[in-house]
């Protein structure tokens, strides 16, 4: 029993580590892909316009090829880490793979058939097809590579969103699994659509910040100034559109989380006791001694935005936002009317009834007792929405790690706000006040340094976003239906520990290699 618990924890750690490494590379592929496609489009237009001076055309070709080289270095390692995630669903989460494979597998297969082939085929054209394809065809291939990467993100986010908010399925006791009933509901669920645009636009801003950061270094060194300014112009616009899109979709994401995953929202804000007109914590330090059922203060220190959380979660300054205690005890309030939701003790009870009903169904089926099967099916259907709670021992097992959700959320918001301000300033400076790029304080050029530090900020921000999304939904592998502890494979913890460290070693080596190659390419640019 202890070994299984250890295996679960190490499997979670392995999946989280793989996902975090993967997410170092993917947003750069998504963002840089768009930047490169825009640059090549500008180049193609100039090339096809006979009145454009050749030097200008070549300048844009140089821009395109330089950023394309960095895109290529990053692309391969993103692919390498991606395949691990797909296979880990099977290797480490075999119960999960069967329980929801009927729904979850389809997006992965479609991703492979359409997105990966599109991406990998046109990637080859991007790099090796300059002499073999016309300018228009090559430019189309670059756009298709970027499109393929986004399409890939679409399907994987459909799969992820389904885990956060399962729709379009029913449980079939005869098959002992969930089966899809509506592909459209799964593929176009509002959660998936919103998450896709949130992720894509945030990746645009990350890719843009990377470009600006590299160019900041060139400005600092006084090298390739024109190249840097032109790159920043493209990246600045992409980044600004991206970060604005991220904020708009982030807002709708908060509304969805409030509705579908209230426990996650409460953890994001360290909110234990709900209230009408709930404040948003702008900055705060959690009280480590706080539990959902004790009377200690939730915060040691906090700066609040009045009614901010109600506005964020329900777009109403006076709306009630339930805290962790309210959710566990089954209280909420809609339009000023107190309503009772199902409290967690009852959920656990009903989850166990659902488990028992499923066992009864199997027993009745064994004895070919159709009346018993019908009775068990009916009982199971009544309680199935709480099936996952049947695996839990007590209510507080359903609370996500609050600190690990609260701090990343606030770091993400703070860094995202920095990115917004920086990108607004960048666009203003490169289009209106280019001389400001040389402005210095105490001998230090301000803009180049700010540009350089913004790239790591963008990465931390992006990683924090995923930490909030994934840790905030714990303990659920599939919201309310399957906790991670029930999703596991029958692999001993020693095996998983070993593979964890092998992956860690491999990914770290490859990351260092990628950084080394990129730095060389950047430093040696002619």
């Amino acid at each position, binding site marked *: 029993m202890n070994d299984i618990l250890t295996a679960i924890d190490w499997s979670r750690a392995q999946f989280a580590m793989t996902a975090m490494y993967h997410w170092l590379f993917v947003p750069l592929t998504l963002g840089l892909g768009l930047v490169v496609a825009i640059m090549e489009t500008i180049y193609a237009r100039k090339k096809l316009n006979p009145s454009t001076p050749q030097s200008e055309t070549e300048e844009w070709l140089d821009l395109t090829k330089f950023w394309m080289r960095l895109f290529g270095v990053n692309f391969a390692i993103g692919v390498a880490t991606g395949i691990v995630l797909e296979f880990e*669903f099977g290797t480490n989460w075999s119960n999960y*793979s069967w329980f929801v494979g009927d729904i979850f597998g389809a997006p992965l297969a479609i991703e492979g058939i359409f997105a990966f082939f599109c991406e990998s085929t046109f990637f080859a054209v991007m790099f090796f097809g300059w002499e073999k394809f016309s300018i228009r065809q090559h430019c189309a*291939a670059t756009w298709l590579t970027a499109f393929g990467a986004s399409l890939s993100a679409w399907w994987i986010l459909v799969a992820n969103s389904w885990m956060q908010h399962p729709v379009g399925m029913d449980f079939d006791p005869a098959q002992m699994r969930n089966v899809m009933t509506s592909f459209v509901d799964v593929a176009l669920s509002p959660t998936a659509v919103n998450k896709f645009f949130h992720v894509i636009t945030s990746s645009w801003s990350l890719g843009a910040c990377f470009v600006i950061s590299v160019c900041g270094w060139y400005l600092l060194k006084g090298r390739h100034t024109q190249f840097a300014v032109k790159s920043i112009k493209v990246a600045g616009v992409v980044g600004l559109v991206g970060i604005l899109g991220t904020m708009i979709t982030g807002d709708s994401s908060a509304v969805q989380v409030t509705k579908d995953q209230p426990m996650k929202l409460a953890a994001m804000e360290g909110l234990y006791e709900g209230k009408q007109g709930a404040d948003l914590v702008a900055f705060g330090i959690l009280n480590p001694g706080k539990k959902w059922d004790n009377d200690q203060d939730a915060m040691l220190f906090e700066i609040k935005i009045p009614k901010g959380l109600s506005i964020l979660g329900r777009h109403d300054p006076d709306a009630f936002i339930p805290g962790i205690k309210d959710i566990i005890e089954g209280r909420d309030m809609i339009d000023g009317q107190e309503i009772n939701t199902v409290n967690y003790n009852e959920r656990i009870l009903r989850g166990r009834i659902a488990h028992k009903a499923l066992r009864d169904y199997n027993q009745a089926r064994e004895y070919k007792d159709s009346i018993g099967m019908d009775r068990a099916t009916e009982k199971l259907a009544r309680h199935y929405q709480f099936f996952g709670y049947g695996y839990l021992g007590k209510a507080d097992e359903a609370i996500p790690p609050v600190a690990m959700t609260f701090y990343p959320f606030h770091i993400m918001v703070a860094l995202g706000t920095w990115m917004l301000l920086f990108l607004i300033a960048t666009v203003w400076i490169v289009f209106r006040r280019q001389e400001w790029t040389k402005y210095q304080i105490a001998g230090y050029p301000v803009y180049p340094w700010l540009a350089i530090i913004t790239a790591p900020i963008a990465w931390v921000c992006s990683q924090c976003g995923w930490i909030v999304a994934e840790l905030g939904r714990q303990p659920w592998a599939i919201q309310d239906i399957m906790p991670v502890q029930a999703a596991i494979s029958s692999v001993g913890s020693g095996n998983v520990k070993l593979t964890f460290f092998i992956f860690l070693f491999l990914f770290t080596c490859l990351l260092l290699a990628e950084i080394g190659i990129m730095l060389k390419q950047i430093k040696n640019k002619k």
Partner: protein
Amino acid sequence: MAYSFLQEYWWFLISVLGALLVFLMFVQGGQSLLLQKDISERNRELLLDSIAHRWELTFTTLVTFGGAFFASFPLFYSTSFGGAYWVWMIILFTFIVQAVSYKYRSAEGNRLGRETYDKFLIANGIIAPLLLGGAVSTFFYGSDFTVQMDNLTRDPVTTGNVISTWGQYHGLEVLLNWRVVCFGLMVLFLTRIQALMWFVNRIDNDDIQKWSREQTVINTAVFLVLFLVSVYALLTATGLKTVDVHQFQIIRYRYLLNLIQMPAALVAFLAGTLLVLGGIIWTVLKTEFRNGIWLTGTGTVLVVLALFWIAGYNSTPYYPSYTDINSSLTIYNSSSSQFTLETMSYVSLAIPFVFAYIAWVWYKLVK
């Protein structure tokens, strides 16, 4: 569409993807040939260059193969991946390092040095075909697992039970099965022969042409021994026949009978074998003949298709369990629901268009 038709259709698609994957693993075969010492540094680079821009296609086919298996036969995905843990993990490790090696090996600042990346390529070139081949052979020779669906209602933490349970070696026990090892080695040498055919087809260099043909003879000799032993082992193997959804009967010469009872599989197997041998012989004997890869490639695809068909069709469980034969997986008891298979079948109609643009792009690139 009838449920059984959809299940058979998806097994057909899986077999097509599997067959294409084995053909495209000529990339791995080429990497394994980097171990050869009898070739100059410059020529080694030429060999690598010729396969360098093909790895993405092999890699993507592998990912799609995995994704399609997950989507269409999730119980196999759940059982095999979660159980034969080490087999899949080792395959994964080698594919991770392969994915970056072509790009990084000659890049400045790669930190690990070119030789390390070449070792990664060699490791992937040997291990991936060996283990993937071995994994496919367990479709005939079985694995050490049991499937107990009821375990879903028992908390793994308190009971220690999950749906699919494996023996303590998690797939590595197959390395002690000589038939599995022989099959894996056969696939490895087949990929090496394919790679040599590819070099003959792609590289205009007299030394490499000569070297490739010489190597083809050596590798074919080994391959033929392994092929004959594997075919003998397979056709004399005892297999299972489905009696009911989870009930099976042991049948002697199961796969030989399947070949006889499924003329399409028999024709594909024989035609494929002849094409592979014909492609090799023609390439070795006629120095001006350089299109052997298309003969051996087509032959490989046909033989692998036939193997998948005799593994999964004709009421045969494609993933037998030797621990508990009633846990064996068939295309009927391990598939996705009718709705999912039907939905994905409509999606699959676009596959020929995907192949068409891939073919067009590669035609333009290599022209």
